[in-house]
């Protein structure tokens, strides 16, 4: 079972990238912002769900500021953010 030890952030606000922030919370939540939030909302929700499950964490508040990133890019940034949030000091 993974443990969120601190807030974790990864990515940038550059075009084609996204800024992902994860923090421990009561329950899972996703705040997906940016021009694509209506175009890829469902897909992003699924990828966040699937990634959290893969990392075996729950109670994660995820914020994504999407600057037009591909799905695989959002996933990579989320993985890095989780890694930073979970790694031992």
């Amino acid at each position: 079972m993974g443990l969120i030890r601190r807030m974790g952030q990864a990515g940038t606000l550059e075009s084609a990238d996204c800024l992902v922030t994860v923090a421990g919370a009561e329950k899972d939540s996703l705040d997906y912002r940016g021009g694509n939030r209506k175009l890829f909302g469902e897909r992003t929700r699924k990828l966040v769900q699937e990634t959290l499950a893969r990392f075996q964490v729950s109670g994660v508040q995820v914020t994504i500021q999407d600057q037009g990133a591909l799905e695989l890019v959002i996933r990579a940034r989320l993985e890095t953010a989780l890694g930073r949030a979970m790694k031992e000091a």
Partner: protein
Amino acid sequence: MRAMRSMLYIPGNAPGMIQNATVFGADMVMIDLEDAVALAEKDAARDMTAAFLRSYDFGDLPVIVRINAADTPYFDADLEAIVPLKPFAVRLPKCQDAQDVTKADARMSGIEKRSGLPAGTVPIHAMLESARGIENAYAVATACPRVKALTLGGQDLTADLGIQKTRDGWEFFYARSRVVMAAKAAGIDAFDTVWTDFNDPEGLFLEAKQIVELGFTGKAAIHPSQVEVIHRAFRPDSREVLKAERIVAAAAEAERQGRGVVAVDGKMVDGPIIARARHLISLACHYGMEGGESR
């Protein structure tokens, strides 16, 4: 044989650039986890590069990944993440001697085994960036069967030698010759270093022509605009193409007649020369050159 004239460097933490890797006509790309990535972002670049290798279809384009050097805390994690994804090669920076290579080789074999891959699946391109590395070029080139190319790292080399890079690059003559010689002796490829002044494409062209003449397989490009310049420098001389066509025709004729010996213009040509001639013709075809004439 595939064309390997240009190798476009792309920072591993720049998704905006990686997603366009296939667009610029480079023969290969090298995604960089080392010098192009800040220390605080090594993990991000690794995750991003792995994500692209895993999910993005680069088509025919060979993707090489330059990992961090063995004496950094990132070396192990880089290999663990990248090797199972089977990049075209792993670029190993700062190779000083054969042991640097064999250590990486052992690590990579372990990872391959755990991933269900045959040991030796992922090639190494060894980067020589110091005086010691250059002196040990042949030992590095032959350190293990995995090594498929030597690359000259000009920027670190000038630092190691305590000199400045000049426009005509005379200071690199020995290092370049050594790298090519060792690579050829080992039967592997040789890649030249970056040209950093992208406001001077003429200088790049002159340098690229020089290294083609020295026998390098290809050269690094740090900006898409450099790819076309490099390709122009590799463009075969039309007389050479005509000669190559005669060689290939002679070889085909000899085969038809069941002869083992091929002669062109009164001289014997053997296997490697015929292969080289074929390679030249395929490069010429790439340029739409026919019968030595460019279109």
